């Protein structure tokens, strides 16, 4: 087991692009080596040691490496980008693009996450114990496929465009979501325990379950009987007809 603890020396205003912070990059490295890893800061690159106090215990493989952020990193972006295994725990708020394109492993955030959490994620797990901002599990701007695999759990609320262009994987939100969750989806499963507005617009494929209230249900869905999931009966809708979609939208 290798444990790496990062504590921000002083709150930063200019965001740190921490796409080099992942178990893949830290595994087997010493404190000094990790401190020397570069991260973009403004228009230049700086060693992580400039920003963080680094503590390292043990040395191990990627899957046995755990990175812990001690405290708020709300101006640190792209933590865990592309990670394939291991674990990251963030004890505070985190900036945009956390877990972008991650392939495996686990990220736990005990705080709020800014936009694009788990964007283009392919595998692994993100657990957010707080609120999420826009575009959870979505695609890169302009791309037609967002999240393809893995699971994101939001134990809180999420803002608009949750799971935009999602093609696979799972998203669970225990609270409410904003406008247009599951927009243009082509696969995967989204479960929203709270309320949602205009869900699943232009969905081609996939499943969306909304347990709370739905506002502005789109008229481009065909009602198709009922379906029972885990002992609860939902009204079943199929669409989006506008996109010749075969997606399933289950609402109360």
């Amino acid at each position, binding site marked *: 087991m290798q444990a790496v603890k990062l504590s921000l020396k002083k709150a930063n205003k200019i965001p740190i692009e921490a796409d080099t912070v992942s178990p893949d990059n830290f595994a087997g490295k010493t404190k000094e080596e990790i401190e020397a890893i570069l991260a973009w800061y403004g228009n230049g690159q700086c060693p992580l040691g400039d920003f963080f106090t680094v503590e390292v215990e043990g040395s191990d493989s990627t899957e046995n490496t755990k990175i812990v952020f001690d405290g708020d990193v709300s101006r640190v972006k792209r933590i865990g980008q592309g990670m394939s295994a291991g674990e990251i725990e963030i004890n505070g708020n985190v900036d945009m693009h956390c877990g972008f394109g991650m392939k495996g492993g686990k990220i736990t955030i005990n705080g709020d996450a800014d936009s694009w959490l788990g964007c283009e994620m392919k595998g692994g797990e993100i657990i957010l114990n707080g609120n999420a901002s826009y575009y959870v599990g979505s*695609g*890169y*701007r*302009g*791309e037609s496929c967002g999240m393809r695999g893995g699971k994101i759990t939001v134990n809180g609320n999420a803002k608009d465009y949750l799971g935009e262009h999602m093609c696979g994987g799972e998203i669970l939100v225990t609270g409410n979501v904003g406008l247009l969750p599951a927009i243009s989806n082509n696969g995967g499963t989204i479960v929203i325990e709270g309320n949602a507005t205009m869900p699943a617009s232009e969905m081609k494929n996939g499943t969306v379950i909304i347990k709370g209230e739905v506002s502005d249900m789109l008229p481009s869905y065909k009602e198709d009987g009922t379906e029972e999931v885990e002992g609860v009966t939902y009204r079943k809708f199929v669409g989006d007809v506008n*996109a*010749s979609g075969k997606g399933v939208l289950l609402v109360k």
Partner: protein
Amino acid sequence: MSEILIKNANLCDPIQGINCENMDICIRDGKIVESVSENAEIIDAGGRLTMAGGFDGHTHSAGKINVGRFINPNDARRKLVPGLSGPEKRTEKTRAQVGYNTPNTYAIGYRYAKLGYTTICEAAIPMLAARHTHEEFKEIPILDKMGLSLFGSNWQVMEYIRDKEPEKLAAYVAWGLKASRGYGVKIVNAGGGEAWGWGKNVNGLYDPVPNFDVTPAEILMGLVEANEKLQLPHSVHVHCNNLGKPGNYETTIETMKMFEKVKPTVDRQSLHVTHVQFNAYAGTSWRDFETGAPMVSDYLNSANHLTFDLGQVIFGPAVTMTADGPVEYANSRLLHEKWSNQDIELEDASGVVPLSYSPKSFINAVQWAIGLELALLVEDPWKIMFTTDSPNGGSFVNYPEAFTYLMSAKKREQVISGFGQMALDRMVLPGIDRELSFYELAIMTRSMQSKMYSRPEKGNLKVGSDADIAIYDIIPGDIDPSVEHEKVKQAFSGAAYTLKDGKVVVKDGQIEATPMGRTYWVNAKVPADIDSAMQKDTDIKFKKYYTVSKSNYMVEDSYLPNPVEISTEGVF
């Protein structure tokens, strides 16, 4: 005075009839000369393949491409062709680069230069947006540029044709070229852009344009008459009606035939038909869709009044961008894709739709085959310009890949082996074993453009021509392109040297220098009385309809930092 001696070049220069012969090339002050002094800087070509700089006579590289950029931000990170796509950091010599189908302006210049290309022609300038086109030209380094202005759905053009006022029409075309600093007349789906303003299209050559009572055939004939009256250096450049529709090869041949009777006033073709791949479709629907290339090629083999370009398809993502508004609407519905649609006020329409060509789709496979069939079935390479209609059929950075399709039947077989039976049944390509030589490839990629655009100083290395030169890392005598197609692709992907006006701009596939290229435009002289009569009509258009004033419409001199004005004398 700067002098360069390129020693031991294996020159392939079809305009001079030189077919891979070892010789020296002398350069003084950016031009090819007979001899140089002993002080000349020496470049040893080492017997490698040497050609004039490439000339892409139909590419979408400034203007509309910007719409492609903003509806496809994801294109910025595509790295499909190593060294010629995706994000690249700024260096001491180059600015930062991004993109694949819609690269940033700097990347367009660098990447064409890496392929050994030194001149491009932007295929569509909406005159109303010409300032923007020139703003982009200004930021495309290295290359010489020119652009074709859109006239095919223009109100004033259609009115003059309807009212039988050929002189005013010619005066308007001359003014339009000046206003947009354009080089030639582009006609896209004649009349279709205006019809699209009413949610309609024109269905072929004899379907009248709503409210104007002229047919596409009349628009084409009216504009070619004006083009020849003005003695423009390029012929009319036509995107045929019914593009992208099964069965459209008939309209294409009919259009070509219509121009048989035209007498060009300049020593060049009387018609250029563009991206014929998209206009050589047989069948009656997408179900029975099949190649129309054999029929179109038969006609092209019998005709001597025209040139055409391929619009070759490259598998993978592409971005269609055209003034053919109704086609883009159809594309976006068919593919359920993003769609940009613009109304160019009194002039035309415009649309942009991204798509992806897949060898698994029988339609895409047949489209891919049609481009190559045209190139290989038409016997005379001087009639053919190689293009992908970049980025409509695919990005220009794939030219080296496409050259191997032309030069190697084995390479084609490799691709064809991935097609389904249905696709194979609808194409004739598997039965074609022709393989082009370096000489024929040079004709299609630089030499024929010299004649087609009346730019005698381009596309060849005669004494007096511009010293735009590409040296590729191939020894022609030592390579069999039919078998060693991977080597050919490699060599064309990064020139050993590219020289622009006698300056080394690329060395070993890397950018060495980024001089500013020229912009060519045509100033056609018109008698003052005809011009002022025409201007009165134009003034009314600006007063009544345009959202801009005439003075804000004209491209001013300051937009062209390095202009070359080509003057022609109209025959009235």
